[in-house]
């Protein structure tokens, strides 16, 4: 418990992850599922970014004089998550496009109805 208090930031992101997961499982609506996916991704990003934070240090951009190693937070997670965000964006775009097509094809975006209408 005390460990969780230490890492309140990660704890929050994990709970967010759980929320996204629950949305993914519970909702039939594809758009909501995609939203859930996004929430999960965001949670992971938060989690990762939190790894780089050092309390009371600057963003890793050198303005004026170099403050030395102590002066800045860890830049690596930010860099990684920049990549991660773009990846998430592309996936979301793809999923949404698929949803559009599904709506054109089946006239519904409720997953259970679509499953009923399976055409083999």
């Amino acid at each position, binding site marked *: *418990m*005390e*460990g*969780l208090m*230490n*890492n*309140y*930031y*990660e*704890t929050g992101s*994990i*709970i967010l*992850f*759980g929320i996204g*997961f*629950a949305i993914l*499982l*519970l909702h039939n609506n594809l758009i909501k599922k995609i939203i859930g996916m996004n929430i999960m991704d965001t949670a992971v990003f938060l989690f990762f970014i*939190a*790894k*780089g*934070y*050092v*309390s009371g*240090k600057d*963003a*890793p*951009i*050198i*303005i004026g004089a*170099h403050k030395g*190693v*102590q*002066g*800045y937070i*860890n*830049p*690596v*997670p*930010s*860099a*990684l998550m*920049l*990549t991660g965000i*773009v*990846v998430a*964006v*592309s*996936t979301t*775009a*793809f999923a*949404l*496009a*698929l949803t*559009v*097509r599904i709506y054109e094809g089946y006239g519904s975006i409720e997953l259970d109805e679509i499953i009923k209408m399976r055409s083999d």
Partner: protein
Amino acid sequence: MKKILSIGITITLIIILLLGVSELPKFGQYNNPANNEVSHYYIEKTTKDTGAMNIVTGIILDYRAFDTFVESSVLFTASIIVLLLLKKEKHIQGIDNEVTIIESTILKQVSKVLIPCIQIFGIYIIFYGHLSPGGGFAGGTIIGTSFILYRIIYGKKFTDKTLPYSKLITYLCGAIMLYGVLKGYSFITGGNHLNLPQPSLGTPGSILSGGFLLPLNILVGLIVAITIYFFFTLFDGGEI
């Protein structure tokens, strides 16, 4: 039943993950294992190695540039797939979409002033990506939004004349190919320790510095802008 089951799964998942979290080193400490010699190296050496004042840009465009290259190909792939899914042949679309044009003088006049500002801002962000917060992705998105705004206000027909699909896809592919070639050159010369000419790093802090950083930022910005515009147009009727 399904609901209860999935809620149960979620809660167990959360609990398990939290078990792990509770062990992880304390949040925001300087002496966490995450802040090890690697991050110190980046903080110290980035400016000297790559000529970037913005360490993050230095990392994504030089230290870990391969990631970024692959990532922009993710973006490219995504745009291609969305194209594949949603692009409709022109003649299929009727005239009815023409109704969506907003005939409003105010909007047109305001946007005449606004859009250039947005684009200038985006360009600034791209060009100063290696010196200040920002970079290709952010700036590209901003420019993309300016295109989107343009399309919303002036309508399909007109926009397709000024920004035709063929030209855009050419720019997109050209940009990402050039990107690939430039980075490939520096990857291979670096990987094989070949002393082929590399662009000079210049004086840190000035715009024309950081070797490949500036052109790469521009290319990335171009790619992102076009992709964003594609996404919008394709989701809005799918007619390019």
